[in-house]
């Protein structure tokens, strides 16, 4: 029993330490973020941020588009098989449009970016720690948070919402293709119905989620990298941990945001 309590206590302290590290890093990065901004910040950091935006955003575009198309088809087909029984096939349009804008677009994007870029952040920063590059930055009078972390944060904050809009478009397009082949509904008319069914607050809710997911992915990826101790093995562990933790936290955050929007929308 005492052993069990000891294990529970140790695990609690470990998790509290992790949350504490997340908070400390968040404040440090927010302070350092100014350096990565265009015009007011350091042009080298801004250039690094743009480079990261291309890596996180542009290079992930085909993958996210394909994921969204597949998910759009799945959602439309699953919805159609049920809704057809009630003669309400046209509700597939609402299901796909609202489902993607509010939920699936940001979530699918976050999962893709977490797997691609969250792991890359952890691996890159972890390797820099192992090879003493982070120490080298410090002794060269650079602030690692400003130099390494801030461009990644800024890039994620810009790229993930943009990618999530792209995911929305491709997901909804997939729904349109399904409707065209199953009911001969023209694509223009389909998009007309889509625009009627989604509201501005649906789009905003999706974008708020995308920004939150971007913060989680960049935050967890960078922290896991910075916590690397030891050799290449530890880098591997931190990479896995970054993907697992950020995906888990993204889904938890999604549930919280969805609950908030649900209850706020009801009132």
């Amino acid at each position, binding site marked *: 029993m005492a052993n069990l309590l000891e294990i529970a206590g140790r695990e609690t302290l470990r998790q509290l330490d992790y949350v504490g590290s997340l908070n400390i890093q968040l404040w440090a990065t927010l302070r350092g973020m100014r350096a990565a901004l265009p015009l007011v910040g350091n042009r080298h950091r801004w250039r690094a941020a743009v480079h990261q935006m291309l890596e996180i955003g542009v290079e992930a575009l085909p993958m996210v588009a394909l994921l969204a198309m597949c998910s759009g088809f799945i959602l439309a087909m699953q919805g159609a098989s049920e809704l057809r029984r009630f003669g309400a096939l046209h509700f597939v349009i609402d299901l796909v449009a609202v489902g993607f804008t509010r939920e699936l677009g940001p979530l699918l994007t976050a999962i893709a970016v977490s797997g691609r870029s969250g792991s890359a952040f952890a691996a890159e920063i972890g390797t820099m720690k192992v*090879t003493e590059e982070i120490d080298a930055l410090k*002794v060269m009078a650079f602030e690692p948070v400003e130099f390494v972390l801030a461009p990644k944060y800024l890039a994620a904050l810009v790229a993930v919402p943009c990618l999530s809009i792209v995911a929305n478009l491709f997901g909804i397009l997939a729904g349109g293709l399904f409707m065209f082949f199953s009911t001969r509904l023209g694509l223009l008319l389909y998009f007309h119905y889509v625009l009627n069914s989604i509201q501005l607050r649906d789009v905003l809710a999706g974008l708020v989620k995308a920004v939150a997911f971007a913060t989680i992915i960049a935050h967890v990826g960078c922290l896991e990298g910075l916590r690397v101790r030891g050799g290449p093995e530890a880098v591997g562990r931190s990479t896995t941990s970054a993907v697992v933790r950020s995906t888990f936290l993204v889904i938890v955050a999604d549930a919280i945001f969805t609950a908030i929007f649900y209850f706020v929308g009801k009132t």
Partner: protein
Amino acid sequence: MSMISVRDLVVEYDGRRVLDGLNLDIEAGQITVLLGGSGSGKSTLLRQILGLERPKSGSISIKGTDITACSPADLNKVRRSLGVAFQSAALFNSLSLEDNVALTLREHTALAPSVIDLIVWLKLAVVGLADFGKLHPQELSGGMKKRAAVARALALDPEILVLDEPSAGLDPIVAAELDELILFLKETFQITALVVTHELPSAFRIADRIAMLFDGSLLAVGTKDEIRANQHPRVRQFLDRVPGSPVHMPALASYLERYVQTQEAKP
């Protein structure tokens, strides 16, 4: 005049004392070699001098600034007068050799790009790598990486050069070339150098003064001849390469005998 002054330095990791009340002065314009076996505390002392860790007590003054008590801004100011080449070279793998050397010049000075290019070429030429500027660190041999790290350390014309195990893992010819490079830098630029090593031939070739560490304390400090003449048993053991704890054959034999007996007794 001492450039670096270490006073009563105590460093502990998890209650284990790694440096125990250490005092050391590094004189201007001299090469001081920090000599000691593995686990003697050389790297720990180096990390303290570079301000990468905080001591439990004691002080380290670099050019009159106590880096254990100064502000981060003052610490960065001190760091700009240091040039550091790490044991692993710690070159930034994503940057070419030229960009590695140019990094501090671009970010800490207002020099024109053409001037920076010229300085970079000069620094690479000093270490014999002028023709390799476009290469990335992963395309270089071990010796070239170490020399590139020295070139990067020299970028801002530092008053103090810190070299961590410059000849570790290199063949004798390349190691000797590095020794000559260090001597050349001292004679040409009147640089103050702190070199951490456990390579005896290298230490006695380049040192003006040698400080010998053992178990977190300084055993001896002096010129090459003073260290050679030192009769402290540990100094003698290190210089004469006498094994510290040879395997005790009778004890090993009895241990093996007992092990075999217990294995045979098992059903």
